[in-house]
């Protein structure tokens, strides 16, 4: 009998210890949450020994401490450090706990996870979030975000196009960080070899541009533009330069969108005339096409500049200008970028709002924040006043001493806001498929656009 009881107890103990195994390891990381890496996986709910019910990383913070998720050590993290330093002048006790994520999608997954579990306390106080995704996430997880309408910010000082992402149904949720204004950078030396100057590619029609691209390829063997054929941002940017959206009243607008049909034709012609190289994927685009010195021009959001600058021997040979358009007017567009959002996990929303308004929101610390963000991380602001600073007015040696930062901010003010949609990325995928079929299989543009439109309608449930 005693033996049997012992067996029972042992078996029970084994089962319990196996279960507890999962719990104890997470409580271990809870206790060491001051460590940045540990606190990222301390998302398991805190155990009862913890006095607060919130997750470790938010709950264990001091009164003047905020945590934030960001992902790029060379780009947005220096910007956040600049903001922390600027706010510390106002409040020396302030501390910003920057938790580095591997990539932007980790932040999105963290929100998805917290939303699915119905427990937002696992999030940090603030997250950096991609502009093209935020619309969808506010729709899907409305409780995860905090309105910042009452923050002390003069919203008119920012690019309206940038704000159109973080303003959902008229409510401000985010503070803009970087600037996604599209640039078209050209190798002036290669243009010259083909008999052109940068003025010849400024304010031209796409038709003329393709001819120039053909000449450049014939003379130099380099493409005038490259793009990731898989995650193809070209149609979006080219349409925005026309002031047209891929969506109309919340529905996809592809087939009956004259500009879109024409742009598909332009992309096809550009590829067939060797003016445009569609790469296999993103790393093929950045590592091989751009850094492998296979291109004479690059068009994308200005965050592509650090990639261009990797090729040291081409310093001084680049210049930037605006995009071509269908009509030949100078084109302005934006692509990518991110903003800072306060999450539902934040218990010090007043502090968070004040910090963000004071720094990124154009408060007293904004000039310092944006100057250092540019110097240390290459982050260009959408705050109109930032361009007045000396740092922005300086010429950049790599770009033939052109003051590109001031120019980009100026270009950003011309970008027209277009209708945004939750389905930006599914659309990008479907249009990339259409382009692929048109170029490789000779498919009909209208038929392919119809297929893409049907699929987006299907996904939306229309």
């Amino acid at each position: 009998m005693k033996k049997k009881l012992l067996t029972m107890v042992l078996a029970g103990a084994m089962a319990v210890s196996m279960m507890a195994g999962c719990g104890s390891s997470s409580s271990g990381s809870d206790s060491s949450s001051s460590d940045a890496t540990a606190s990222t996986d301390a998302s398991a709910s805190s155990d009862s020994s913890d006095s607060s019910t919130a997750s470790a990383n938010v709950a264990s913070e001091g009164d003047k401490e905020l945590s934030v998720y960001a992902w790029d050590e060379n780009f947005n993290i220096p910007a956040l450090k600049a903001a922390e330093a600027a706010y510390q002048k106002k409040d020396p006790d302030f501390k910003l706990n920057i938790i580095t994520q591997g990539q932007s999608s980790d932040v999105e997954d963290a929100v998805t996870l917290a939303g699915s579990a119905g427990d937002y306390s696992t999030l940090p106080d603030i997250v950096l979030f991609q502009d093209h995704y935020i619309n969808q996430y506010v729709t899907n997880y409305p409780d995860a975000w905090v309105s910042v309408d009452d923050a002390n910010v003069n919203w008119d000082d920012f690019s309206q196009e940038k704000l159109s992402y973080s303003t959902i149904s008229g409510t401000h949720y985010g503070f803009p960080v970087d600037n996604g204004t599209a640039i078209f950078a050209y190798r002036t030396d290669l243009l010259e070899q083909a008999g052109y100057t940068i003025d010849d590619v400024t304010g031209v029609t796409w038709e003329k541009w393709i001819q120039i691209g053909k000449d450049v390829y014939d003379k130099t063997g380099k493409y005038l533009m490259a793009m990731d054929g898989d995650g193809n941002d070209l149609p979006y940017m080219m349409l925005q330069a026309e002031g047209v959206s891929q969506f109309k009243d919340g529905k996809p607008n592809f087939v009956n969108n004259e500009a879109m049909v024409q742009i598909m034709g332009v992309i096809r012609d550009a590829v067939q005339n060797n003016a445009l190289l569609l790469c296999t994927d993103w790393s093929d685009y950045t590592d091989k096409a751009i850094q492998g010195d296979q291109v004479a021009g690059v068009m994308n959001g200005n965050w592509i500049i650090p990639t261009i600058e990797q090729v040291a021997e081409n310093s001084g040979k680049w210049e930037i200008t605006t995009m071509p358009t269908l009509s030949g007017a100078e084109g302005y567009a934006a692509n990518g970028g991110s903003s800072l959002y306060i999450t539902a996990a934040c218990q010090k929303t007043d502090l968070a709002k004040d910090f963000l308004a004071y720094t990124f929101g154009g408060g007293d610390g904004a000039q310092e924040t944006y100057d250092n963000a540019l110097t240390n991380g290459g982050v260009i602001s959408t705050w109109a006043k930032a361009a007045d600073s000396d740092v922005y007015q300086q010429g950049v040696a790599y770009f033939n001493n052109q003051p590109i930062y001031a120019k980009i901010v100026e270009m950003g003010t011309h970008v027209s806001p277009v209708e945004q949609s939750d389905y930006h990325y599914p659309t990008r995928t479907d249009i990339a498929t259409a382009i692929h079929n048109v170029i490789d299989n000779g498919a009909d543009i209208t038929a392919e656009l119809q297929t893409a439109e049907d699929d987006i309608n299907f996904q939306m449930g229309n």
Partner: protein
Amino acid sequence: MKKSSRGLTLQAKQKAAGWVFLTPATALICIMSFWPIIQAFIMSMKTGSSANMKWNSPLFNNYARMWQDKIFMKTVGNTFLYLIIQVPIMLILAILLAQLLNNKDLKFRGLFRTMVFLPCATSLVSYSLIFKSLFARDGLVNAILLKLGIVSNYVDFLGNETWAKVILIIALIWRWTGYNMVFYLAGLQNIEYSVYEAAKIDGASGWKTFWHITVPLLRPTIVMTFIMSINGTLQLFDESMNLTKGGPANSTMTMSHYIYNNSFGQGVANFGYASALSFFIFILVAILAFINLKVGDTRD
């Protein structure tokens, strides 16, 4: 309590002990596997974002929807294409290699066996990335082809629908042949050498020995590798995700990759629909495994 347990017969006591030993494992598998499966089934009847899921109306709308989903049907087609082409090639190669490496007179047998099995030791992600760089626009394969003058301009292997599929299949064969070979080698060890001797005395050729002795005696192993390969191929994910990202134009995307895209990729977070798709695969695997077992069943 004491009285009643003392009253148990020896058999009852043994039975009770058996249940006690079974309980921890049963409890764990129920909590860790069966409960999530039931949850997923419930979720597959819901719609909306994961924070605020509502019952679908009609209840099985997600299941009805997948039949109209052209991309999903395309991924089903892709997966079956891999299945039909890759699995037979791989298993035939594996059985031939096993036969070769089972030869008692072969020198360096251990070395060759290790070499064939070695790809299985690489992680799915790393081997996908290696194949990706091999077949990149300026990868090794293109460099060789250009140098030898076989092609005049690089071939965009991963940017071409047909080539991308071919490369995915080559990668799969490279990765999994050795794995299946090990099972066949083990199966071959169990075949008495005297059977082969008898065949030799009867004057059977090598091919006849293989076809009439090795294959029938290996049948249980072949059935098992078939089921495992079918199951593995239907759930193929890493290669599609890492080697081609499902592209170009969704031409290499597998069902599992599409499920991932519907739950985490592209920020869609359509967990209800993704769960329904998972059950589609679940049923497919069950049906195919059932057919396989029936075909391979030797008891009759």
